[in-house]
């Protein structure tokens, strides 16, 4: 009898977890798509264009799932196909580690690193020269973005934990981390900026190489990529807000996400894409200033 009860609880717990994961992934996709649509709309209005509707990114993502899928003869199979599934899988896992379970930031960090690998391989596996250039740029940009993400070590040194739940608890007691380690927040914001569309740092998707690593993926594969992009944008914003602004209500998250999206759109609309060397060196410089400055501030205060 005891065993049956225990099993029942286990089944209910598992089902609750599955439902929670499903709900959060759907929210991440829908909200991420709308935010990216808003990003595009704001950029257009700043550039005095009407721009597409806010739901355009969402419609595009769904549309690709119903379009014909074709595969280049030169592609590296099965990597060419599986890389899009991996792209989607890692960001769904990021939703589980982040908003669902409030797990460790190290896994989010690892997911980001795998994302750089996916960018790399999606570019190189097609055989297209544009994809290949994007692949080489992904290696360059990883050298800069990983130090940016490594600023999370500052959070660990400040709070003594790298678990998202514990960081939120720490902030509930000591106040938001944005006030105690502002340079670390700035560095993380640069990372978010580099992942926003048309960013000065988005060298892997620069228009000089068409769409970079996405150029040769069509149909369902492109649909998976756009779905992953939306979830990735949502997760990065969620991590930033949770880690630096402490416990927030749903309205707080919404206002924060819309604000950051608007700020990045403003920056991207008014700045050109940097060349790869300038982009990487700017990011590395910012990472060094951010990490060094944060350490100095921690020792002084």
């Amino acid at each position, binding site marked *: 009898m005891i065993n049956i009860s225990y099993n029942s609880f286990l089944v209910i717990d598992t089902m609750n977890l599955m439902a929670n994961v499903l709900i959060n992934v759907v929210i991440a996709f829908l909200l991420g798509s709308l935010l990216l649509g808003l990003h595009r709309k704001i950029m257009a209005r700043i550039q005095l264009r009407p721009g597409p509707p806010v739901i355009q990114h969402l419609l595009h993502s769904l549309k690709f799932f119903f379009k014909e899928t074709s595969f280049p003869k*030169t592609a590296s199979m099965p990597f060419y196909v599986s890389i899009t599934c991996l792209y989607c899988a890692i960001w769904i896992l990021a939703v589980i580690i982040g908003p669902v379970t409030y797990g460790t930031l190290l896994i989010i960090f690892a997911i980001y690193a795998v994302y750089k*690998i996916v960018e790399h391989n999606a570019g190189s596996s097609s055989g297209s020269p544009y994809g290949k250039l994007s692949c080489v740029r992904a290696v360059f940009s990883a050298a800069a973005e990983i*130090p940016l993400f490594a600023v999370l070590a500052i959070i660990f040194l400040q709070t003594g934990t790298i678990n998202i739940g514990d960081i939120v608890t720490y902030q509930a007691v000591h106040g938001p981390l944005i006030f105690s380690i502002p340079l670390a927040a700035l560095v993380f914001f640069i990372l978010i900026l580099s992942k926003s569309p048309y960013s000065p740092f988005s060298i892997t998707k620069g228009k000089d190489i068409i769409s970079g690593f996405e150029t040769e993926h069509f149909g369902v594969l492109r649909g998976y990529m756009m779905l992953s992009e939306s979830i990735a944008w949502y997760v990065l914003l969620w991590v930033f807000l949770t880690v630096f602004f402490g416990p927030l209500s749903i309205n707080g998250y919404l206002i924060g996400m819309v604000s950051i999206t608007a700020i990045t759109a403003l920056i991207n609309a008014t700045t050109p894409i940097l060349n790869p060397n300038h982009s990487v060196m700017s990011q590395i410089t910012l990472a060094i200033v951010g990490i060094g400055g944060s350490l100095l501030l921690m020792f002084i205060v």
Partner: protein
Amino acid sequence: MDITTLGGNILGTIPLGDIVIYLTPFHLFMFVVVLIFTALIAMSRTETQVEAEFGTLKESKVSVGLSEFKTRRFLAIVCGLATAGAMITGDLFNITLFIALIGIVNVGIVSAVKQVDVLDAAYQYGIIAMISSLPLFGGAAMILAATGTLSLFVLSGIAATPMMIFGAILLLIGIAGETGIAPFFATKAEMFRTPGSPFILIIHLSSLMVIIRAIEVLLIIVT
């Protein structure tokens, strides 16, 4: 520093003498990801690079020959397994050995290519990797001298001393050089122009995965 604070709850341990292999969600994720990629590398064929030629309507195709394919695939699988080992081991010396192996194999993966620019880059990266092996093993030796152990499980319970921090800094320099991250990335990026997408992927994958594991290891040592 409590190991669970960094990687999440311990799912299991395998004690091998004073070396304790421990598994947290973080290690499990890293280990599984590397194995998935290694399996995909083992079964994938390579891409053919196609580029338009200037002045004519022809196109040039660059692909990987069969013997080169076999050699590079073997080395890529070895690199994948070494990376997987570095993700899951609980011993600092084993980590340094795996990282040194990754450095050697990475050079091997591109040394079979017959492209001058790529070979130049591989040569430069090889030199950096060789030089970096000194601080890499030196750092581990410093930590052993300071604490009497290289088990991360034991190190997590020892308070940091200046000698341990110095050893950790040496380790960081060694890992940065071996994996070719900033500021050494310029020596490595040109290697990625060669065809053979699955094989060059593992070069990038091993670097990033090792860096993330290194951050965990360094935090264990210095906190």
